[in-house]
């Protein structure tokens, strides 16, 4: 079945961990948009949600770094970070090994991926889930694109991977939602944290909403590093979702810099027709 929902959102750990340090007015507007995205996601009645996150050395290290990896387990654990620091309690998160296995099998027809039967979630997945599925009642299929350990996944391969994900969703009978998470421009976990290139972010999200492949791939890592910081490498997850959405156009629901959260806080979705639910 064609994917039933596609969107992107921020995942910065400060969103939950440093909530008390932010201006409550803009913070609460962002939270409302984030939760609305969750309502819309759950209204699409997904059987599983594929979360394409740029993980940050929670599972993969430079001893064996995959360009793409997909989880294949009935259960995951998170957050890996100190729970009081992140502001999210540690817990088990449901997966679906059977759906993951069939999903991975389909993706592999067109993209080479690693699979993992163990996966500890970091803020890249835990922060979005906190807002999108606060009851943790939708099985998750975690996906990683290497945005951290150079050499990084090339952008055009991220696009091709997204196309493979779109095909895989269409091939499965289940209703699959796809969420990409990450920052756009940001300089996380450095003294530069809080530096944001808002103009760059808005231009990127304009390309994302137009789902303009050529424009989305018209970046190189050196320029991204200069203009958008090492955190900007996470555009790979947004590009993957763009390709998975198969040409749909998008809408930005929230895009405002919140420096203490280190990013332009972002909520955006693609306008895709939601297939009717089955009568079974």
């Amino acid at each position, binding site marked *: 079945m064609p994917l039933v929902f596609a969107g992107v959102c921020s995942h910065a750990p400060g969103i939950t961990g440093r909530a008390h340090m932010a*201006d409550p007015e803009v913070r609460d507007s962002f939270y409302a948009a984030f939760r609305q995205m969750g309502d819309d996601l759950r209204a699409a009645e997904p059987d599983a949600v594929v979360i394409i996150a740029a993980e*940050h050395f929670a599972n993969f290290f430079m001893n064996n770094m995959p360009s793409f990896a997909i989880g294949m387990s009935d259960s995951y654990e998170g957050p890996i970070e100190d729970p009081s620091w992140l502001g999210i309690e540690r817990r088990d998160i449901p997966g679906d090994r059977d759906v993951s296995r069939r999903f991975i099998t389909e993706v592999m027809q067109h993209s080479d991926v690693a699979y993992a039967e163990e996966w500890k979630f970091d803020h890249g997945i835990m922060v979005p889930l906190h807002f999108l599925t606060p009851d943790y009642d939708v099985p998750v299929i975690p996906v990683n694109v290497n945005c951290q350990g150079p050499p990084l996944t090339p952008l055009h391969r991220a696009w091709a991977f997204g196309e493979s994900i779109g095909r895989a969703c269409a091939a499965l009978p289940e209703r699959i939602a796809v969420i990409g998470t990450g920052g756009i421009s940001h300089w996380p976990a450095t003294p530069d944290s809080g530096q944001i290139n808002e103009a760059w972010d808005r231009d990127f999200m304009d390309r994302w909403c137009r789902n303009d492949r050529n424009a989305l791939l018209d970046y190189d890592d050196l320029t991204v590093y200069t203009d958008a910081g090492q955190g900007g490498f996470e555009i790979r997850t947004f590009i993957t979702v763009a390709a998975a959405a198969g040409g749909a156009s998008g809408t930005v629901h929230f895009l405002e810099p919140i420096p203490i959260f280190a990013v332009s806080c972002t909520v955006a979705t693609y306008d895709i027709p939601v297939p009717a639910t089955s009568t079974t």
Partner: protein
Amino acid sequence: MTLYAVQKFLFELNRSPSLQEQYLADRTGVLEPYDLTGEETDALVEPDIGKLFHLGVNGQILMRFAAFHQIEWQDYLQRMRDGIAEHGPVREGVYAMTTGLDDVVAPVHDPAANTNDSTERTA
């Protein structure tokens, strides 16, 4: 050059509650299997966040290590700045510093202030 080993240790520490217990019980002993210089061992034992940042430890890995040590956010940022001030620019890797030592990049919201320039750099 053993930055790889420093990061490998921190990667494993961040993932493993049992290794965290070992580290807290015997910080030097737990580092023995890793190929580290004395400078690196000292920085991991103290812990010297500024030195580790200067050595080029990936910020995501270092951020978790600081959180494990219950180092408050603004203090964590300041320790990295202090490390740069004392030891010089980040030696390698993509997690560097481009702002000035006295820049306030992300002020903490102060509801009592009319301006937006408040900050709490120290814990």
